[in-house]
């Protein structure tokens, strides 16, 4: 079923109506939602190609964590989540246990301070409760929450709340110590699970730091397959970029080809 769903975008035309009806029934039983569920494309074809329906499903719970030390400071994961929230219209609710988000940094990932309502809840339980309130409301673009422990029950509640209102929920998994990060292997009801780790930045011909790069791993996806890809970090509109050397050789080579075409 998983592989069929994955290929569906390509083979949609050749599938018989009986099969597509069956597929819809299965997805309804699974709680994934009707066929008409909206998605948010990343506008990076390499990434969208691997995602069911070509984007990140709205009205679902998604998990994002940082890799390595990022599991504790969650800086790259925050920017990734901020970039997703920035590309949706409306206000964003961001729940944290203790306030350490730096708003100028979020603005550089595309999320302007006027759009973010911060909630400082104190403990994990209160964060989950606030996240659920936000997801149930339905008037928000996205709800992001810094969560350490996310049980199956809690994640299912959040997923159902998101499904009811169509708001996207991003659980930013963040732990106190590296040892606790093993918790990320536990199953949850989230639609996708991402890990974003910092990579050395784009090399520059002069000393300095170029555009940051991330290793974006899709560890688990319902109705999709895991993969990983190297990307350039969010720009100030929340869009990820494909490194030139990954897309089509080096930037210089790409430029040369364009010139040749003209």
């Amino acid at each position, binding site marked *: 079923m998983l592989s069929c769903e994955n290929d569906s975008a390509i083979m949609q035309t050749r599938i018989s109506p009986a099969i597509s009806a069956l597929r819809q029934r299965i997805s309804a039983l699974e709680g994934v939602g009707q066929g008409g569920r909206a998605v948010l494309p990343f506008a990076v074809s390499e990434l969208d190609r691997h995602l069911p329906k070509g984007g990140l499903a709205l009205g679902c719970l998604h998990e994002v964590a940082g890799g390595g*030390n990022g599991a504790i400071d969650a*800086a790259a994961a925050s920017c990734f989540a901020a970039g997703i929230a920035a590309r949706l219209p409306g206000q964003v*609710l961001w729940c944290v246990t203790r306030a*350490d988000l730096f*708003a100028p940094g979020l603005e550089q990932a595309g999320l302007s*301070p006027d759009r973010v*309502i911060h909630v400082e809840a104190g403990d994990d339980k209160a964060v989950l409760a606030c996240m659920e309130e936000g997801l149930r409301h339905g008037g928000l673009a996205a709800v992001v929450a810094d969560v350490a422990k996310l049980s199956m029950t809690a994640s299912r509640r959040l997923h159902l709340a998101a499904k009811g209102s169509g708001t996207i929920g991003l659980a930013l998994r963040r732990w106190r110590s590296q040892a606790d990060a093993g918790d990320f292997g536990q199953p949850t009801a989230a639609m996708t699970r991402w890990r974003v780790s910092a990579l050395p930045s784009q090399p520059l011909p002069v000393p300095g730091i170029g555009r940051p790069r991330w290793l974006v791993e899709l560890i688990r996806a319902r109705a999709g397959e895991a993969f990983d890809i190297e990307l350039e970090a*969010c720009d100030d509109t929340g869009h990820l970029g494909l490194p030139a050397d990954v897309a089509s050789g080096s930037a210089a080579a790409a430029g040369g080809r364009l010139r040749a075409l003209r």
Partner: protein
Amino acid sequence: MWPVDRLQRQAGDCAPSVDAPLILAGRDGRRRVVIAAGPTAHALGLRAGMSISKAQALVPGLRIEPADPQADLESLERLALWVMQRFSPIVAVDPPDGIVIETTGTDHLHGGEPAMLEALIGRLSLSGITARAAMADSWGAAHALARFAADPVRRTEPGATEMALAPLPIEALRLPPATTEALRLLGFTRIGELAHQPRAPLTRRFGPELCRRLDQALGILAKPIAPLRPEGLIEIRRNFADSIAARETIARYIGKLVPRLCLELEAKGVGARRLDLICIRSDNQIEAVRVGLAAPQRDPKHLTRLFCDRIETIAPGYGIETMTLTATLTEPLAQKQADSLLEPAQPDLSGLIDRLVNRVGQGGVYRIAPVASDVPERSTRRIPALAEPTGAGWPGHWPRPARLLPRPEPIETMALLPDHPPNWIKWRGIRHRVLRADGPERIFGEWWKRDAELSAVRDYFRIENEAGERFWIFRAGDGEDATTGSHRWFLHGFFG
């Protein structure tokens, strides 16, 4: 001090200098006496009860104003009303110069009892009112401590009332002057000496009043506070034939009271900003729940839900006899078109904000607005979640981290001075080799605001280690001149 403070406040800017000695004169029978003395006059030895001629003889150039007890009382009532709207639903005037506040069930909205006391005194002194406050288990004890304790703000732990009262003079017991005189003749000067005397002889000699006041102060005898109810207050009351205690029952009656209140609000064209639910228990104790709203509201469903989220904070004890729902603070709320065909309606977030505030407290829900400051930790401020969009941002020409440490953490480094990034840093015992770096970005202290930062400098660097992790570090000082900082290095944030 209240009459003097009131006079000064009313006179406003045209008041003569506070330093001039001022007394208020009134009549005691046929004598003209001092009713109240201002701070300067008090320091010069003038006291209430002194005759005017004596005061004039003692202090030349004394300013004398007529006392107006009626206006004082009315003004005190207005102050009590302000306290009721801001701090607690159950407030009463305690003439001639006191206000009694029941804080049960509301102190958590202000971050606990000490913070509440501090906020109250701070707000009062900002408006020019000299206030003394005490928080204790009983009205009598709080009354005595506020007036006779040495420190102007006093808070006693629950159960420590007797110990706190023992050193106070017997005048603190609110007894008639004749009784106090007689007790002093007998050699009683402090409450502690009186508290453990046999009660029967005391009652025989002084009547029941003495023991009653003593019990009230020690909290043995409850004295209910008759709360201040101003005119025009929107209030719905319900008495129960049988007292209620179960959660579901309380929820059901909240569900009946709220729609009635909303109808009244609608009739007056206002919406509630603050609502109080006061439950009077059968043992005469009062339980109060206060709910604040981010925007004026009169939607019964929403208001009911806010109260029902808080039912567990009501301790029904032996049962609740009367429930009163009050709209303490209201604001005009006009009907408006919710949706039009031309433009989609903006989603209304005030309901969500109210529920979140109800859950995490007033300070926990906010938006962030820019402040024009180069110092990173001062470049943000919190504004209410529903404030108008500021439209402003931060200058984007330097990258800023996504997460900032609450305070910069010291790191070990090896760096070439003055303006090279470190070769390596050691943070929390782990060494990171620096492969690439950007900087320095020099930030000067705010010398125009703080003298201590007259020459302070921070040099910020963005560094990247072998794994690609990017940190924001700074050196206190410019690397050459020791007056600009300690030249120690700190880690301040993490880049995505």
